[in-house]
């Protein structure tokens, strides 16, 4: 939105800063503004670096020029409509006021957690609407009463275990039929189920890739390194913090960080070796812990299967142990900072994040392996069993998240203020909380294939979690002591959400659909060899219908042919190489331009000095001639 405003130089008027365009500059400005639409013109006027009086004048000039045309009335109405629309959108936007309050008291890095939560909630709302609309509603319209065997009734325990009464409803994969529902239109349930889930996953993938790339470009490539003094001095102060204690804390942290930088200590060799040994030890310990937890979950699953008593409560054992591990071990990892020394706080956060990610991946990996290799071969309606396991995991995760808030924040506050004052009031641990959100969302993504209505539970969970965390934050925590690079952490979290978590969930669902035989007795894919053959069957049906030959052609020659994928890969690699060369060229151009700036300014200085010098000589000559003349 430049509109040539760079031409408006900052003029100093009597030592006071006022940007007043000269007459010609004003004419240029008016000429530029007159060609824009009303909305763009209003936006351009708002962005002018002038005082309000000047902007009002420009606006008055523009409106008196435009007054002759009647279009102004129409466009003003349109402008009003746009503003109405934007203010209506503001009131409808979820949690706007709460976010402002949190941002004002705790800063933008804590706010990024809540915005991430809101973003994930949108994924789940979309998923629920899509699944409910395309899969569940047609089935409910066709067959409203679920066919439950006569001896099963609703007890309260189903809410926790997901088994029993729920097993026969549309909650799980097993409750869906494989027929073509006849009604107003012929609705093929198999195709609907397959394509709904596939399209949703693909759209999620695109949304994640897109936001990850955009965030990466803005916050990493174009960004100043966090360690630079200039950034810390001029860009890091958060003007929106109004709390006196928070301001005092930030000031003292900035002072600490700057004075650390000013006295950069060099380590001796023995200190370096000691640090290296400590790092190695702690990484070995954390990796070992993660692998150990994975193995113990596997053995626990096997034990549960062997025992397999009629006690339904035993099915809750594995989810509770998983959630307990997810609660306790990250807290344990957070304690590592007491003896592990990292060169910067950012590295410490990244190390913590990597350890937690590894722990969660190993647990999820073990569970998926168990489901696909053991459960799929043993049970008759195994998809519903997996769906129930996931349901139990989600519920247990929710309960333990609430417990975690209690331990992580409330108890820490009590301990820190009353029992051991040395610890102080706890801070809101953003990394740990965001990873819990990512884990919860991964469970939902894995579960969509096995339990299409799982997003509904997730929506309720996230809603309650938002308010719970907000209350816990305001009651128990203090604002973060260091000004973190919130934007870069945000990029890291989105990247983590995509890979390994989303990719892992997608691979698991894809493997299930591709390799595992669907169960014979229940679900929409019964009777087929694997889920993907649904598409093959549909294509075979389409072949007899005239006018849809192009779909069949695309399927056979594009989707099923290997040459197509090979060509796509080669083309992508070539384009990537070309872009890489362009980037290298741009980097060297940037260096050249920087050097030119220095050269130009040196040249300007020399020119000015030369002119001053010439002026001086002329003055002296004039003076000499004049004095000679007077003497004469």
């Amino acid at each position, binding site marked *: 939105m430049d509109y040539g405003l760079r031409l408006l130089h900052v003029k100093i008027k009597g030592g006071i800063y006022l940007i007043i365009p000269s007459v010609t500059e004003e004419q240029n400005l008016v000429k530029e503004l007159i060609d824009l639409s009303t909305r763009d013109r209003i936006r351009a006027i708002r962005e002018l670096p002038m005082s309000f009086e000047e902007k009002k004048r420009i606006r008055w000039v523009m409106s008196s020029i435009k007054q002759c045309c009647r279009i102004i009335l129409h466009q003003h109405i349109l402008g009003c409509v746009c503003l109405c629309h934007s203010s209506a959108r503001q009131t409808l936007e979820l949690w706007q006021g709460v976010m402002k309050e949190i941002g004002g008291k705790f800063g933008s890095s804590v706010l990024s957690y809540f915005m991430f939560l809101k973003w994930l909630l949108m994924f789940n709302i979309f998923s629920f609407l899509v699944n409910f609309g395309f899969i569940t509603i047609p089935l409910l319209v066709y067959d409203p009463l679920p066919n439950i065997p006569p001896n099963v009734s609703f007890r309260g325990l189903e809410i926790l275990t997901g088994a029993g009464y729920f097993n026969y409803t549309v909650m799980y994969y097993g409750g869906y039929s494989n027929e073509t529902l006849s009604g107003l239109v012929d609705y093929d349930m198999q195709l609907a189920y397959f394509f709904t889930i596939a399209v949703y996953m693909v759209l999620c993938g695109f949304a994640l890739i897109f936001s990850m790339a955009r965030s990466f470009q803005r*916050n990493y490539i174009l960004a*100043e390194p966090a360690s630079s*003094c200039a950034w810390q*001095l001029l860009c890091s102060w958060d*003007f929106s913090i109004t709390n006196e204690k928070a301001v005092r804390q930030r000031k003292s942290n900035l002072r600490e960080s700057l004075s650390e930088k000013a006295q950069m200590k060099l380590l001796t060799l023995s200190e370096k070796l000691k640090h290296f040994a400590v790092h190695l030890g702690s990484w070995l310990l954390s990796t070992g812990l993660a692998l150990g937890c994975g193995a113990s979950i596997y053995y626990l699953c096997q034990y549960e299967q062997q025992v397999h008593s009629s006690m339904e409560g035993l099915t809750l054992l594995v989810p509770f142990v998983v959630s307990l591990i997810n609660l306790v071990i990250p807290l344990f990892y957070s304690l590592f900072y007491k003896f592990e020394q990292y060169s910067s706080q950012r590295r410490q956060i990244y190390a913590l994040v990597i350890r937690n990610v590894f722990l969660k991946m190993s647990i999820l990996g073990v569970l998926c392996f168990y489901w696909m290799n053991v459960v799929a071969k043993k049970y008759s309606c195994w998809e519903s069993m997996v769906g129930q396991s996931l349901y139990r995991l989600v519920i247990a995760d929710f309960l333990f998240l609430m417990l975690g808030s209690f331990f992580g924040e409330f108890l820490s506050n009590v301990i820190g203020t009353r029992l051991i004052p040395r610890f102080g009031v706890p801070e809101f641990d953003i990394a740990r909380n965001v990873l819990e959100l990512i884990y919860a969302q991964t469970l939902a993504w894995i579960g969509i294939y096995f339990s299409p209505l799982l997003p509904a539970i997730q929506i309720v969970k996230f809603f309650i979690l938002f308010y719970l965390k907000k209350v816990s934050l305001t009651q128990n925590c203090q604002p973060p002591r260091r000004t973190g690079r919130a934007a870069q952490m945000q990029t890291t979290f989105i990247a983590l959400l995509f890979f390994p978590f989303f990719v892992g969930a997608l691979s698991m669902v894809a493997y299930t659909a591709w390799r595992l035989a669907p169960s014979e007795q229940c679900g929409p894919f019964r009777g087929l060899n694997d889920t993907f053959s649904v598409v093959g069957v549909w294509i075979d049906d389409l072949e007899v219908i005239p006018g849809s030959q192009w779909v069949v052609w695309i399927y056979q020659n594009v989707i099923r042919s290997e040459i197509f994928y090979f060509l796509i890969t080669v083309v992508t690699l070539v384009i990537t190489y070309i872009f890489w060369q362009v980037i290298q060229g741009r980097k060297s151009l940037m260096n050249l331009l920087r050097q030119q700036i220095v050269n130009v300014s040196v040249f300007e200085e020399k020119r000015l000095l030369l002119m001053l010098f010439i002026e001086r000589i002329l003055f002296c000559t004039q003076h000499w001639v004049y004095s000679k003349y007077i003497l004469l």
Partner: protein
Amino acid sequence: MGNKQTIFTDEQLDAYQDCTFFTRKEILRLHGRYHELAPHLVPMDYTNDPDCKLPLALIVNMPELKENPFRNRIVESFSEDGMGNLSFNEFVDMFSVLSETAPRELKAIYAFKIYDFNVDNYLCKEDLEKTLNKLTKEELTQEEVDLVCEKTIEEADLDGDNKLSFADFENMISRAPDFLSTFHIRI
């Protein structure tokens, strides 16, 4: 809209809406805040553009500005006389630039003004020293202050004149993606 308010004429509200980043409701709320700073000085009727300025001391006591280390410089940068006396238009201007929707270029211009303590169009070493002292409660030693200011100039100065011009400052701001969210005061 439907509400009958008598503080501003409709044309005035339209002008405010078009020239600042606030809606009509927010302008009226701002007027309420401006009025409660000095209820006997600020008239409730602004339809004939009264010439009323509030002194610096009243404005920096607002809760949004009270704890800000740069509160005096912020108010001075937006006042026409450079002494910090703000009329209502300048008050609105100030919070408009500091609002969420103002673009980065506009914020960079005013941030530069705020940090330029001696108003000479450059951020020289003295300006940076004063900024640093305001941010650290003057608890760094003189050597540390010198070192930090020298490193800052070294990192950000592009044209080699040992002080930061607006172009240098803007170049640095464009590479700080957090700037839009940190240079922001909610009202």
